[in-house]
């Protein structure tokens, strides 16, 4: 089978304008993946399936990954003029001050597709797509029209991560019920405090249970 | 006579209920009751074959057919309006006329008179001999007619099935 780099160039020649990037994999398996931009993902995927040499006709696994906003704090030495009283006279003196600088790299949601070929019996080729951010730009093209296998799995990713797959023929919640609001697989998901805790040996659970019980009984009283 | 006194009102009640009940399925069930009463009347008159045939054909098949027809064609929901149609008077007149004709015919026949009590013992075998002997031609004609209608029904059903595809 072609290497990831070869596949990358093959896609770039076949799909004009596609921007691809190889995402390295640090584990010993060294299965590097291809990051494809959302605009050209559909065409690239179609190419991957139909290309005579690759023939990746089997989409094995679709999943989402939630990458949180990353907050990196670094200490930076900044030199700036500071007003100082030197010998009774106010003068501006340049002084080096250590400041902590916070940079926030915005998070994103990622959809990962594991492709294999049943005809040629090779694989995997891992395809990734990323959303703009985690809140409003969460749309990605659906690959269900290319691989039917994505139908339920994309629904699941939509359900649990909140990625909206445009072009999906039947995008509804699948594991959670229809009225459910949140996306339970996100890293910052907080359990709703709405179920019955059973008394356990654990302090924190007990506390939550008691608080919840108190809240529900007062609610009931009102 | 006691048995007749029980059966006749039952049959009549079944018939009336069939006309007057609101729920069509109930009506069909009432018809079945009327049929059963009729069959019992036959039995009371020692006409075993006719009685059993009545049950087998009417209760077992016709009533079921009616019920199926009701269920397949329209919902069995109770109609909101009254059960009597606007032309009920006409219907009543026609029914009365038919009854009058029948009564006249029955009263006019000699067998209606109570004095002739011969009570013929009719066995099933005799019916068989009669059908196969004297009445064989009518029987065959009826058979041919029924076969023809059955073939027709089959063809109609087949045509519909073919047309759907």
């Amino acid at each position, binding site marked *: 089978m072609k290497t990831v780099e070869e596949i990358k160039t093959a896609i770039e020649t076949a799909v004009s304008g596609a921007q691809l990037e190889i995402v390295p994999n640090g*584990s010993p398996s060294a*299965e590097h993946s291809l990051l494809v931009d959302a605009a050209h993902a559909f065409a690239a995927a179609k190419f991957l399936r139909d290309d005579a040499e690759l023939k990746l006709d*089997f989409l094995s696994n679709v999943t989402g990954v939630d990458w949180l906003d990353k907050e990196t704090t670094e200490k930076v030495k900044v030199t700036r003029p500071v007003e100082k009283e030197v010998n009774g006279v106010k003068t501006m003196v340049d002084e080096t001050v250590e400041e902590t600088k916070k940079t926030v790299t915005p998070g994103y949601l990622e959809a990962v597709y594991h492709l294999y070929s049943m005809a040629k019996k090779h694989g995997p080729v*891992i395809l990734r797509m990323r959303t703009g951010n985690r809140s409003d730009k969460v749309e990605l093209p659906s690959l269900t*029209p290319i691989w*039917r*296998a994505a139908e339920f799995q994309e629904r699941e990713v939509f359900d*649990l991560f909140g990625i909206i797959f445009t072009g999906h023929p039947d995008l509804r919640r699948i594991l959670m019920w229809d009225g459910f609001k949140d996306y*339970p*697989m996100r890293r910052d998901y907080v359990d709703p405090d709405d179920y019955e805790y059973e008394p356990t040996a654990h302090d924190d659970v007990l506390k939550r249970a008691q608080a919840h019980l108190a809240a529900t009984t007062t609610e009931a009283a009102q | 006579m006691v048995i007749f006194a029980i059966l006749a009102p039952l049959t009549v009640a079944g018939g009336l209920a069939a006309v007057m009940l609101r729920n069509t399925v109930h009506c069909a069930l009432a018809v079945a009751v009327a049929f059963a009463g009729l069959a019992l009347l036959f039995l009371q008159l020692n006409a075993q074959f006719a009685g059993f045939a009545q049950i087998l054909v009417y209760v077992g098949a016709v009533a079921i057919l009616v019920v199926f027809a009701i269920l397949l064609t329209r919902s069995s929901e109770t109609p909101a309006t009254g059960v009597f149609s606007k032309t009920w008077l006409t219907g009543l007149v026609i029914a009365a006329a038919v009854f009058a004709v029948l009564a006249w015919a029955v009263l006019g026949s000699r067998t209606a008179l109570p004095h002739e009590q011969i009570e013929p013992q009719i066995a099933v075998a005799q019916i068989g001999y009669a059908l196969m002997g004297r009445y064989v031609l009518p029987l065959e004609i009826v058979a041919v007619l029924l076969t023809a209608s059955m073939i027709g029904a089959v063809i109609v059903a087949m045509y519909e099935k073919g047309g759907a595809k």
Partner: protein
Amino acid sequence: MSESLLEAWNRPPTIEVDGEGELLEVAMGPHHPSTHGVFRMDVVLDGERVIKLKPVFGYLHRNHEQIGQTVGYLQMMPYTDRLDYFCSLTNNWAYALAVEKLVGQAVPERAEYIRVILAELTRIQNHASTIGFLTQEMGASGTPLMYAFREREKILDLFESLTGSRMMCNYMRFGGCRVDMTEAHLNAARKIVTGLPRFIDEFENLLTSNEILMARSQGMGVLKPDLAVNAGITGPMLRASGVNYDIRKVDHYGIYDRFSFRVPLGEHGDIYDRYMVRVLEMRESLKILEQALKDIPAGPFIDPKAKIRGFKPKPGEAYGRIEAPKGELGFYLISDGGTSPYRFRIRPPSFINLTVLEDMCIGQNVADVVVVFGSVDIVLGEVDR
């Protein structure tokens, strides 16, 4: 994306309803005798013909993947038992394989043999009970199921004496297995393997040439190979459609390249083919078992250097997959260097095999829906996770 991009096989076929007959909507499940648990099919019927079928999942959803992301690598092992509770050992293997791939852990030879033996025994008991359930859906009052369970019991007894538990084995570890398979266990396994062919013969006597079974299953629930491939169907269902794809042969994971066995393929892709492929796979599994039990070498059953506690893989990701009895079972792990995976994903074969349930059922009789459903072979613990 426009509708025109959808290809022919991409949606279930739609059926024109003839006549003005009323359509009947029936919710089969979640409390229905033949949905294998809490699963619902919203079926639209025209008479007894299925016009539309929508599977509804999630009654058993417990967010297994989130659990996997909060507990450590080792602690996830017993949770994998509870996915497909019929085949906990293959689940263990798939997970162990993914983690081993993530950290580059080697597995001693003896451990590989033990894994193969246990996985093939699991496959046999799973296929036998699946066929039992399938005939149960056809109304066989449980006789084949009881025969299947009789044999399954023997296999589970072996599992219990080896791993301590009949179904929730929690047996495999990263780099080997938890305890060694002693000679006594191996002899027990040999005894089971010599007894099984007779059982499969009995099973086939009872079912294979049965006219009612043939009439019920041949030509029903047909799955075309191109759709099967496209919809990601795996396992016996795929092979019943005639596609030669067995991960044991393709990936050669473990030591499967050392054994000679064949992959049975169906031709029609109907329920009967699925049944027969399972029966024939049981026979092939027996062949593997015979070879494995003959050749198993002495040696360590777990890599002595393998870490159990304080397991912290380097950042990276791995996708490990095996041929589980129900299809391709995969685990996708992303490590960020912490003690628990950053992303833990299960690729459940029974869930994805249900993608084509509607395609197979449309136009069929309602009575066939349950049989088609039974022939898919699912476990709700895995579907809903």
